[in-house]
């Protein structure tokens, strides 16, 4: 993928393809417009679509992840977690994804190729930026809404800030972690397989409706 940025000579592109824009279509392209969902009144939950993330699986070679640890520390200032945790910098997160596996998440996809290049050879890297549909979930009732499908305990004493989990909700695999609290309390980031984003939304929208929900940032897909 190192030649990804190479721009071909314009003269060599056939006419038919020249017109093409290659406009990306994100995982949440089908989400409804920003606004209020469910029971009217103050929204108990907030859903914010996260588009344009850079995401990659990192799998360490067994017994030889020192260089990887060092590189992540140097480039992102992040310590590779050895237990189910998500660590965050201003721009990046490292999320535990199984023994010896992590997700590297960049808030902005531009520059992610360079990030991965910098880690090349230190881990088995597989880009997943397009393969995950990500949301930020918050609001005073968000735990009650998540409890309608999430089979793990999200109580603050059990799932503190920084906790991460791979689990499933409504027959759909999810990667869920908790980031710093917002004005309405706990804030969760969640990712599901892109192909199941629609079905996940069907469950999520039904589950938050009781509490009312503010849906935001869907337009930036």
């Amino acid at each position: 993928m190192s030649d990804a940025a190479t721009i071909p000579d314009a003269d060599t592109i056939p006419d038919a393809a020249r017109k093409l824009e290659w406009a990306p279509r994100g995982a949440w392209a089908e989400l409804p417009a920003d606004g209020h969902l469910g029971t009217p009144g103050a929204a108990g939950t907030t859903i914010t679509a996260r588009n344009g993330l850079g995401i990659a699986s990192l799998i360490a070679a067994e017994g030889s992840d020192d260089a990887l640890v060092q590189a992540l520390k140097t480039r992102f200032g992040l310590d590779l977690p050895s237990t189910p945790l998500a660590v965050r910098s201003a721009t990046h997160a490292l999320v535990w994804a199984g023994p010896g596996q992590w997700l590297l998440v960049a808030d902005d996809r531009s520059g992610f190729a360079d990030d991965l290049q910098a880690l090349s050879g230190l881990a088995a890297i597989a880009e997943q930026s397009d393969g995950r549909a990500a949301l930020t979930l918050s609001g005073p009732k968000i735990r009650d809404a998540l409890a309608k499908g999430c089979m793990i305990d999200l109580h603050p004493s059990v799932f503190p800030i920084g906790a991460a989990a791979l689990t499933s909700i409504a027959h759909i695999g999810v990667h869920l972690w908790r980031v710093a609290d917002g004005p309405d309390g706990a804030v969760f980031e969640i990712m599901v397989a892109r192909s199941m984003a629609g079905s996940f939304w069907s469950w999520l929208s039904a589950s938050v409706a009781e509490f009312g929900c503010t849906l935001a940032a869907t337009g930036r897909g």
Partner: protein
Amino acid sequence: MRITCPHCGARDVQEFTYLGDASPSRPDGLEATEAAMFDYVYQRENPAGRHRELWYHGAGCHAWLTVTRDTRTHAIEAVEPTKRPKAGTAA
């Protein structure tokens, strides 16, 4: 039923896939005999009581786990990763 994944913590059994008896080990290599392989593939102790068995945390960390469980009561005595991490691994 809940299985305490050594990596992920206590999880509902729904997150796991069952394979079966963990005690037989595969007769590897070109020297292995058909009889030994037959034993590995087909024959089972199937005890009423303590049973070491393989489960896959497919909806979680994808680890294969060796669970020691009583087949009469479903009580779980131990859960271990089948693959032991080597020293120096972050996980």
